[in-house]
């Protein structure tokens, strides 16, 4: 395979479940794993005579997304019916938007990534859930399924990008930034595994340096960013192999199996889809007023791209640290609160946040630092102690471990555990003295022109003091006593 001769062309289609209280077109509460069919009513079951009513909050969230993605918002958009039969679609049509979507022509760019144009963003309703029961003897007939309508009618925004991405890595980075953006503006839980964020990819390849658009395939079922990247890589490789063997890629939908890493074309339906879209007569046009637009703008917090810029310029944070804080919005907010609480120290707090704290959160699989016992004030206080040399680095790590698991006041923990640095110079003096005496070979080597051997003596002192000694002070004392 000669990947360098081929350029991938990738566009994404993203379905975002909105975190409203009720469904898109009825007043049923959204479902979070409740028992099947406990969140339904005649409307979302498609009973005869029922009519949809549009959720104002879903529209508001839609406008927020459109604004965040710098889209043009349609002065007047309408809903359409998309007709097809499937057991998870109670009315036999999905209410969606078609030729006039809520928003179009926007953009979102990963720093140092390619600019990605947003083709459109529209409102629609989610389908229900079909639970395959397989060939159970209890269920008559081979292969029965059971429909649970709890999810049916959940508000969705579908975002479609232009095919502006050129690698699986770029696609992943873009999807991650989009997720962070959606999370930050607070319109969705954006949980890929639970399906509140679903990313499908349209993938094709072309000879590098050309503008042609070859047949694309639609890649589905990538329920994590890792799988998104791996699935796309596999599909790109597959398409290159096909073209290079002189054959042609066929347009189809492909299912990625993350376990085996294999790609399987979804069985093509016995017919071509003909959705017979037509304007939904039960809903009236949506004409965003200036007040609605202003409310959407006002509801937007600082977006990730702006936040990144601010972290770089105001706090002078290095690229990778700023990137971690922006990409993990809960971490970023925690960091900022901590900086406010600590009256500065941004650089040190950022290092502690992205270093020790992240390690702890990852280890315990915690997404929001607030779910640990650590408070932003606690972190600020702890970092302050280290910076003012009233707590050694290694002791601080110990304190942080307790703060995140048990909580409490850093100073109280330091006190209770006796971690305060040895303030009494004569005490430290004695310990250093004893350490020098106990290690004559090391002293020999230091004197013989190997000053780095002093580190071992410092280590011995730290062990003796349980980290309460200040490393720099210990080094100074050693040098003083050895007269070097």
């Amino acid at each position, binding site marked *: 395979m000669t990947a360098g001769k081929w350029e991938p062309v990738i566009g994404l289609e993203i379905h975002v479940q909105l975190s*409203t*209280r*009720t469904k898109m077109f009825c*007043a*049923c*509460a959204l479902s979070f794993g409740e*028992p*099947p*069919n*406990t*969140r*339904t*009513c*005649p409307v979302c*079951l498609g*009973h005869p005579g029922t009519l949809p*009513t*549009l*959720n*104002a*909050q*879903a*529209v508001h969230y839609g406008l927020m997304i459109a604004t965040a993605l710098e889209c043009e918002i349609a002065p*007047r958009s*309408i809903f359409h019916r998309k007709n097809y*039969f*499937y*057991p998870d679609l109670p009315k036999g049509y999905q209410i969606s938007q078609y030729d006039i979507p809520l928003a179009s022509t926007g953009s979102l760019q990963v720093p140092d990534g390619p600019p990605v144009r947003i083709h459109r963003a529209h409102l629609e309703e989610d389908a229900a859930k*079909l*639970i*395959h*029961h397989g060939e159970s003897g209890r*269920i008559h*007939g*081979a*292969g*029965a*399924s*059971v*429909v*649970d*309508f709890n999810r049916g009618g959940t508000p969705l925004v579908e975002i479609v990008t232009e095919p502006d991405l050129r690698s699986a890595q770029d696609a992943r980075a873009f999807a991650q930034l989009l997720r962070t953006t959606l999370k930050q503006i607070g319109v969705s839980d954006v949980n890929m595994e639970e399906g509140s964020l679903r990313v499908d990819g349209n993938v094709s390849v072309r000879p590098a340096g050309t503008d042609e658009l070859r047949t694309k395939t639609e890649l589905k079922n990538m329920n994590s960013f890792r799988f998104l990247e791996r699935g796309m890589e596999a599909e790109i490789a597959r398409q290159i192999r096909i073209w290079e063997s002189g054959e042609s890629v066929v347009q189809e939908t492909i299912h990625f199996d993350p376990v085996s890493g294999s790609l399987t074309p979804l*069985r093509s339906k016995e*017919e071509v889809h*003909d959705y*017979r879209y*037509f*304007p939904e*007569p039960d*809903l*009236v*046009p*949506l*004409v965003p*007023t200036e007040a609605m637009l202003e409310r959407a703008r006002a509801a937007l917090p600082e977006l990730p791209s702006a936040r990144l810029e601010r972290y770089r310029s105001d706090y002078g944070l290095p690229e990778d640290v700023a990137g971690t804080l922006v990409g993990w919005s809960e971490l970023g907010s925690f960091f900022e609160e901590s900086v406010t609480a600590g009256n500065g120290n941004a650089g040190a707090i950022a290092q502690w946040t992205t270093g020790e704290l992240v390690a702890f959160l990852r280890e315990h699989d915690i997404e929001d630092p607030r779910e640990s016992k650590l408070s932003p004030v606690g972190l600020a206080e702890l970092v302050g102690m280290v910076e003012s040399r009233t707590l050694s680095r290694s002791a601080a790590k110990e304190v942080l471990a307790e703060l995140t698991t048990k909580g409490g006041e850093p100073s109280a923990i330091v006190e209770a555990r006796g971690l305060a640095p040895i303030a009494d110079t004569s005490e430290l003096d004695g310990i250093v003295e004893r350490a020098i005496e106990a290690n004559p070979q090391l002293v020999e080597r230091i004197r013989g022109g190997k000053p780095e051997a002093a580190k071992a003596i410092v280590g011995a002192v730290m062990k003796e003091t349980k980290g309460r000694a200040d490393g720099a002070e210990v080094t100074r004392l050693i040098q003083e006593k050895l007269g070097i």
Partner: protein
Amino acid sequence: MISRDQVLHVARLARLRLADDEIERMSRELSTVLDHIEKISELDLDGVPPTSHVIEVENVMRTDEPRPSLPPERVLESAPDATPTGFRVPSPGQ
């Protein structure tokens, strides 16, 4: 005129199984009606906007306030084939 194949294609889209004699009759009857309908192709409708709503009203929305859903026993009562918790269907794609 609508052909037998077209009738079958449309019947599949609409999920209607037609008996042989029905296909024949449907093709004949639809053709008569479509012939009448096609008279509108004579009209000059350039620049005429389509009407999908006769009322001039917009932005009708509901506040995002949940109301109680129905108990599952009640909604499943209407179902021709229900399990204790859901609506049973033959699995798609079989």
